[in-house]
């Protein structure tokens, strides 16, 4: 990470980083993720917005979850747009490390970097 240069923070020019992307997750009988698949490689377009198009090879195949490191739940911002998420920090088959979360209001799963 770049050292803080004490440049004034221009919040109007901030761009989001590590935007969550929708993903298909298979869960076991206890509700724990077992496989992750059909998630699209996060790429940013010229304006810095995340694209959801696949790369040259299309969507990657399903990957088995090798280990669950941590599970936590967030219920926040009930006073405006409520956030209710169940996070699962996982290690994928092959060593990839990602964070999955289930949006408990819609049931949709998302993936992002830890």
């Amino acid at each position, binding site marked *: *990470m770049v050292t803080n240069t004490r440049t004034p923070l221009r919040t109007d020019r*901030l*761009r989001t*980083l*590590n935007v969550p992307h929708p993903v298909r997750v298979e869960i076991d009988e206890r509700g724990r993720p077992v496989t992750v698949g059909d998630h699209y490689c996060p790429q940013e377009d010229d304006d*810095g917005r995340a694209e959801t198009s696949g790369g040259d090879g299309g969507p990657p195949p399903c990957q088995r979850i090798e280990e669950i490191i941590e599970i936590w739940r967030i219920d926040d911002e009930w006073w405006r747009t409520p956030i209710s998420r169940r996070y699962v920090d996982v290690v994928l088959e092959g060593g990839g490390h990602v964070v999955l979360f289930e949006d408990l209001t819609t049931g949709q799963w998302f993936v992002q970097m*830890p």
Partner: protein
Amino acid sequence: MTVQSGKGIESISAVCLWIPIFSLRCEEHRRPELMRRPTALLSPTDSRRLWQISAVARHTGVRPGMTVSQAIGLCPSLTLCEPDPVHYDEAFTQLLLTLESVSPVVEPVELGRVFVGMDGLEGLFGGPVSQLETIARVLEPSSSPVSHRPLSSSWAAAARLGWAHGKFTAWVAATRARPGTPIIVSDAERIAFLADQPVAVLPISSDTHRRLRQLELETLADVARLPETALISQFGVEGKRAWQLAVGFTLDPVVGRERPEPIVMGLDFPDPVADRTMLAHALSKLIERALSHPQRVGWRVQSARVRAKLEHSASWLTEVTLKDPSADCARIAAPLNVRLEQNPPMGAVEHLAVEFLSFARGTNELQLFARDATSAARAGQRRALHAAAHEIKDRFKRPLLYHVVEVQPWSRIPERRYALIDFEP
């Protein structure tokens, strides 16, 4: 047509004075016997390689950058000289001071290459021909009606002079001129003159030169025929500058050097002092005070003078020129203390004064020769990073480099921990 503006005195009318292999010529002036021999100057950074070579040595096949063993193999009688950068710098400084007697607008570029601004001097020296004759005259060591600082050696036989509007055209003219036969490029001829020149005259990187050759662009006319956007998309900022120079859009002015006024600090003694230790101490204090003068910030002291008023209306004066300009009290005081020891005042001192007479820039030079190599490297990296960021912005019309900034690094919601912000050096 664009005219760049900037701080300091500027002049669009430019004379470029170019003395090729300046450092080697300094050696030849010091040791005239070298002029007839094949001679080479060793590189200041790598003593196993050659830096500058004489015309006689070139005829034997010796080239700059060769190793000493290669060169000796080609020319067994080659005379090798150790470089003496301080001497070359002093000689160049003397040349600049001499040129300042012609025009106040003098811009050195590198050893042996300097631009002289001639705007507003027509009334004094006449047209371009007379201006060039005046400059050629002050390059002679004999005293001239113009120069108050005659040179110790003659550069007239080696100097190539070009006159034009804008530094680039003046430089190209100087490279095409022969010693004693300057080239004048009037404004009407400028574009046609530039069109015939090879792309090698463009001040761009060797990589860009190589790519231009691969694209079979041989003259500035070839470059000027292309659309500006094509050059920018291929070469970025360099391409833009190359195109503007090739079509003659850029009239880059000569920018005169800022010269601070002398700084004087004096001290009256209530009782006349003859003790040398006390005088040395007072001298040191005066140098410290002069160094802390706000006018001195950003400059290193090149020459200093000490004056003393003695009892019975006598006086004493000594002056030193530092080989390495300095802003360090001890370094400035040392040669003055030596003078004080060797040639002390002939009586007790009532008033002592220190004058800083001339200065050298204290920024780039200090970075280049910084004792702290790490800080110099950091400065170089910063410059490279800034140049790359500007080039990307120029090419894509918007910044595509970002800082990662912490927003809520403690957050349990990962996308809120960090964000991106435009990187604008």
